[in-house]
C-alpha cells in the first residue's frame, strides 16, 4: 500500500513535471516551416537557401554581437517580442516537384503546426505550396520566386520579398538617368534578348519601363537561345551603334556575344547585362578579363567592411565552410529576417497576428542584407521597395558601384572591354 502510493506519487510528480515542461516548451518555441528543393534539379540552390535560413535562425536565437549593433533582432536570446521565444525550423524537401511541395506544406501546417511558412525557390512550387497555406490561413513568405502571376491571385497570406522584373527595370532606368544627368550619352538603347520565356518576358518589361521613364529603346533584337553564331546580331548593333546595349542571355550565349563583339571590335558606350548568364561563374572566369567595365545586377554584394551585408557574408562563410552568400541565398536570408521581424512585432504565434504584422512591415534600406531599398508590402503582398544593386566588372570580378550608399568602388565609364 505504502509502496503503491509512493509509486503513484512518483508517476504523478513525473507527469506533472512533464506537463509543465511541455507547457514551457510550447511557449518558448516558434515553429517555422521551411520548404526548399533539397533533392532534384535545383538541389544545390535549395541547399544554399536552406543554409541561409538556418543562419537567420542562428542570428535570432544565438545572436551576433557585431551584427546586434546594426540590427536589433540580432541581439540573441530569441524573439524579444515573445519573451525570448526561440525559432525552431521545420525543414522539408519539395523534391523539385509542385506535388511534393504541396504535400509537405500540408504536413508542416497540419502536423507540425508551424506558425508561418517560408520557401519554396521554384515559382511553380511556390504557387502550389502557398495555395495550401492560403486555404489554412498561414502566412507564406516567399523570398526568391519571380513569376509575375504569384502576386496576382488575390491571396491574403502570401508575401513576396524579392524584387521582380519590373523592379530590376526601374533600377536600370534610374541608373541610366543618373548617368545621363552626369553628362553621359544614353539616348539610344538596344535590348538583345534570347527568345524563350525568360528573355521575352524580361525584355518586354524593361522596354515598357524604359518607355515610361523616357529612355529610348531604338533596337530590340531577339535571337534563339544557344546560338552557334551571333555575327548577324552584332553587325546589326554595329550598324545602328547604340549608346547602351542591354543583354538578356544565358551563359553560352553571353560568352559567344562577348567573343563576337571582340572579333568585330565593336563596343557600346555602356554595356549592360541582366545578371543570369553574365553573372555565371563560368562566364566570369572565362570572359571576365575581356569585359572590363561591364554593368550587371545582383541582389547581393558583400559591401563595405562592418556593414550588415559584410557581417552576414562572414557568418555564412563560417557556416557553409567556404562559399559566401550569393544572389539566391542572400534573398532567402533577407526573406527569413523579414518574417522573424514580423513574428517579433506580432508578439504571438497566432497566424492572423503574424499576417497583420507582415502587412505592417516597414524595414528601411539600412536594415537590409540584400540590395533592396527596404521592405514594404502592397495589397497584393509584393515588396514595393525591392531593388537591385548595380555591379561592375573590375579586373575579372564584379564589385557593387550603385547605389552609392552600398558601393565599394567608383563607377568607371565608358565600357572599356577587351585590351587586344
Amino acid at each position: 500500500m505504502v509502496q503503491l502510493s509512493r509509486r503513484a506519487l512518483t508517476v504523478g510528480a513525473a507527469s506533472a513535471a512533464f506537463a509543465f515542461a511541455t507547457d514551457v516548451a510550447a511557449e518558448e518555441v516558434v515553429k517555422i516551416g521551411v520548404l526548399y528543393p533539397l533533392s532534384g534539379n535545383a538541389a544545390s540552390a535549395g541547399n544554399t537557401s536552406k543554409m541561409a535560413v538556418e543562419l537567420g535562425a542562428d542570428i535570432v536565437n544565438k545572436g551576433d554581437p557585431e551584427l546586434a549593433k546594426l540590427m536589433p533582432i540580432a541581439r540573441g536570446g530569441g524573439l524579444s517580442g515573445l519573451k525570448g521565444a526561440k525559432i525552431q525550423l521545420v525543414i522539408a524537401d519539395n523534391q523539385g516537384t509542385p506535388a511534393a511541395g504541396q504535400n509537405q506544406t500540408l504536413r508542416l501546417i497540419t502536423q507540425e503546426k508551424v506558425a508561418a511558412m517560408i520557401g519554396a525557390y521554384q515559382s511553380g512550387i511556390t504557387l502550389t505550396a502557398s495555395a495550401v497555406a492560403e486555404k489554412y490561413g498561414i502566412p507564406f513568405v516567399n523570398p526568391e520566386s519571380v513569376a509575375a502571376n504569384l502576386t496576382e491571385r488575390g491571396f491574403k497570406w502570401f508575401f513576396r520579398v524579392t524584387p521582380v522584373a519590373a523592379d530590376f527595370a526601374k533600377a536600370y532606368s534610374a541608373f541610366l538617368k543618373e548617368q545621363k544627368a552626369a553628362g553621359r550619352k544614353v539616348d539610344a538603347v538596344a535590348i538583345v534578348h534570347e527568345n524563350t520565356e525568360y528573355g521575352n518576358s524580361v525584355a518586354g518589361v524593361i522596354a515598357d519601363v524604359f518607355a515610361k521613364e523616357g529612355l529610348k529603346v531604338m533596337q530590340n533584337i531577339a535571337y534563339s537561345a544557344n546560338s552557334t553564331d551571333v555575327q548577324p546580331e552584332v553587325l546589326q548593333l554595329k550598324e545602328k551603334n547604340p549608346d547602351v546595349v542591354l543583354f538578356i542571355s544565358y551563359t553560352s550565349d553571353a560568352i559567344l556575344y562577348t567573343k563576337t563583339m571582340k572579333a568585330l571590335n565593336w563596343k557600346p558606350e555602356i554595356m549592360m547585362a541582366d545578371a543570369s548568364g553574365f553573372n555565371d561563374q563560368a562566364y566570369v572566369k572565362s570572359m571576365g578579363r575581356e569585359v572590363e567595365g561591364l554593368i550587371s545586377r545582383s541582389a547581393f554584394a558583400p559591401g563595405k567592411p562592418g556593414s550588415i551585408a559584410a557581417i552576414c557574408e562572414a557568418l555564412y562563410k563560417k557556416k557553409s565552410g567556404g562559399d559566401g552568400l550569393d544572389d539566391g541565398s542572400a534573398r532567402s536570408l533577407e526573406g527569413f529576417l523579414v518574417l522573424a521581424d514580423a513574428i517579433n512585432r506580432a508578439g504571438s504565434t497566432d497566424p492572423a497576428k503574424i499576417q497583420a504584422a507582415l502587412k505592417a512591415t516597414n524595414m528601411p534600406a539600412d536594415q537590409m542584407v540584400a540590395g533592396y531599398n527596404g521592405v514594404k508590402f502592397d495589397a497584393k503582398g509584393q515588396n514595393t521597395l525591392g531593388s537591385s544593386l548595380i555591379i561592375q566588372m573590375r579586373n575579372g570580378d564584379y564589385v557593387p558601384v550603385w547605389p552609392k550608399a552600398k558601393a565599394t568602388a567608383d563607377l568607371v565609364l565608358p565600357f572599356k572591354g577587351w585590351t587586344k
Partner: protein
Amino acid sequence: MMTSRRLLQLAVIVVALAYPIVTSGSPVWQRLGALVLLAAISASAWNIVGGYAGQVSVGHAVFFGIGAYAAVVAFVHLDLPPILGAPIGMLLSVAVAVVVGVPTLRLSGHYFSMATIAVGELVRVLSSTSDWLGGAQGLGGPAMPRTVFDLSFVSAMPYYYIFLAVLTGLLGLTWWIERSRMGFYLRAIKDSERAARSLGVSAGRYKLHAYMLSAAFTSLAGSLYLCMFGFIDPESGFGILLSVKMVVMAALGGAGQLFGPLIGALILVPLEELSNSLLGGQGAGITFVVYGAIIVIIARFLPSGLLSLLERRPHPGTKAAPANPNPASGHAD
C-alpha cells in the same frame, strides 16, 4: 472458402469507404489516401496496355500531361472549370495514342519502350516552348475556388471519393475486359505475339485498342491531378519520372493483374511520402534511393510482382494462373 473470401471483400470495401472518415483528424493521412488512389488510377490505366497486352510503355506521362494541360487550358483560356477539360483531354489522348501507336506498336519489346520514351521527351520539350501552354513556367488552375465545380477543396475527402469512384469504374472495366474476348487475345499476344497471329488474332488492332483505352484513363488521371494540385508545368506533366512510376507501381504489385497497380500504389506512395517527410529535411534525397532499390529487388526476385506471392501458395511448384482454366473460380489471372 467462399465465405472467407466474401468477408475479405466486404472488409476491403468497408475500409476503402471509411478511410477518409477515420482519418478526418489528420489531413495528412487523409490526403495520403487520395494520393494512393490517384496513383493507382494512372498505374491501373497503364496496366491495360503494359500489363495485359505486355507492351511496356515508358512514355505514358504524355497522356497524363495531356489530361492535366487540357484541364488547365479549359480554365486559363476558356474560363471553364478545369474538370470540363477532362473529356477533351481524353479524346486528344486517344487521338495521340493512335498517331503514336500505329507505327510504334509494330516494334517489339525494348524497341517499343524506347520509342515511347522518345515520344514522351519530345512532347515535354515541345510543351516547354509553347507560350500558350505557359512555357517552361507552367500554368496554374483557379487560385481560389469560384464554384464547387472547380473541384478545389481544403479537405482531401472529396478528392478521395472522386478518385475512388473513378478507380472502381476503371477496375470494373478492366475486369470486364479481362473476361471478354479482348482479354484472352491480349494475354495471347503477351505470351507470344507470333503464336497469337498464327491463330488468327488481329494483334495490331487489339494492341492499339488497349493502348487507346489506357491513354484515355491516364489522361483522366492527369485532369484529376490538376484539379487537386492546381498547377502543371512540363516536368510535372510530361516528366519521365511519372512514366517510370506508373511502370514501377504496376510491376511491384503485379503487372497484368487486376489489383496489381493498386497494391503497388498502396506500398510505394506511402513509402515515398513518409520517407520524404521523415528524411527529406536532411536533403539526402533518400526517397529516390529507396525507389531505385525497389526496382532492382523486383527485377531480381519478383519479376511478376507481389501478387504472384499469393498465387504461388495454393499451387506449390506450378504456375498458378494457367492451372485453373475456370474463370468462375475467381482467379484474376
